[in-house]
Structure formats: C-alpha cells, structure tokens
C-alpha cells in the first residue's frame, strides 16, 4: 500500500524567510509525487510534480521541491515566503502507471506572518 506522511500539522514562518514543508512517502516502484495547495473553502490547486528526471522540480508561485530517493522525501520549499502563501499544503503520491490512485497526506498548514 502507498502512503504519505506530512509530519508537521503547522509550519510558521516570517515573511521573507525561506520555508520548508516536509513530506515523506512510501510506494512500491517508481513514485509520482505531487504538491497541491488549498485555500479556505476551495478546491486543491496543483503546484508541482515529480515524475522523472531532475530531482529539483520548480512549480507555480516560486515553489520548488526536491526529490530524495534514498530518504523517500519530497519536501516543498520556497526561498522567500509571502503572507499570501498562507494556506493548507498537501503532498500526494502514486505509483507510476495508469491505474494507480493518488494518495494524499493529511496536510500541513503554512502560516506566514509579517
């Protein structure tokens, strides 16, 4: 079975500082990894994904994530946080292939303050 762990319920960071939201995964075979962001009472917005290739993936709104196979991690990062980045962030994984479903973590709330 595949799973995702987001060990932090909430991450607090000051505006302008770098941020990291952690994610580790478990899946058999090659992982497809995703980050989504959710604002209050809204659906999930796609940020970025890792399928294959360069371990550092760049996505929307200045976010990036680093795939680390040995640590089975896919941490989300941004060099300089904005107050508008405050939201709920979900990491998701699925096994490479057409039929496997996407499994989400429980989410990490990012709070960016002035």
């Amino acid at each position, binding site marked *: 079975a595949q799973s*995702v762990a987001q060990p932090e319920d909430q991450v607090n960071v000051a505006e302008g500082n770098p941020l990291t939201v952690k994610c580790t995964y478990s899946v058999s075979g090659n992982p*497809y990894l*995703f980050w*989504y962001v959710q604002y209050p*009472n*809204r*659906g*999930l*917005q*796609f940020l970025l*994904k890792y*399928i294959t290739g360069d371990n550092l993936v760049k996505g929307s709104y200045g976010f990036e994530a680093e795939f680390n196979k040995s640590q089975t991690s896919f941490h989300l990062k941004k060099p300089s946080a904005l107050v508008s980045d405050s939201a709920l962030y*979900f990491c*998701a994984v699925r096994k490479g*292939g*057409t*039929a496997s*479903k*996407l499994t*989400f*973590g*429980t*989410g990490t709330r990012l709070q960016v303050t002035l």
Partner: protein
Amino acid sequence: EAEVAQSPRYKITEKSQAVAFWCDPISGHATLYWYRQILGQGPELLVQFQDESVVDDSQLPKDRFSAERLKGVDSTLKIQPAELGDSAMYLCASRLDPNTDTQYFGPGTRLTVL
C-alpha cells in the same frame, strides 16, 4: 484557463434526505474522480471514471452512495440517505490522460448534514 466546475458550492441537508452533486470536468478530460475530504484530513478517493466506465469504486459506500457519468462527460454523485458522518467537502477532479498525469480539482461542494 479551463477549470473543473462543481455545483452546488454549499449544501445543507437533514439526515435521511437525498443529496446530489454535479461535476463538469475540463473539456476533453477522459478521467474523472470524486473525492471526499473530511475537515483536517487529505482527500480520499471515492470513485474514478475512465470515460463512462467506473475504474475504481472500492472506497465508495455503495449502500448509500452512487455515481454516474452516463455520456462520459459530466458526472453526478448521489447520497441517499445522508448521514451526519457524511458532512465533508466533496471534490471532483479530472485528468486528460494517463501520460499527463496531473489531476485538476474543482472548487468542491461543502456538505453539512444536520
């Protein structure tokens, strides 16, 4: 930019009543998903369609939930009868094809069962 449409955005109902949610995926997207997101948790897959066929409904409580995508375009998720524990956000997502892999989510329907 094309989006996944869902309606209604909010629904309040009493237990034992029937409710229905509608989803219109991005045009041309053959794969459609319904997820349930309980407050404080990540989305969980209820049902996956490929065109008009159900690919995965293993997590759908079939005694009270039903889903259809008759013409392989828009879809309806129904709950009858609704129970208090069904209060959640119901999210629809679509995907162009397995090679593109990214799922795009609609804004969701927030269901409250009283």
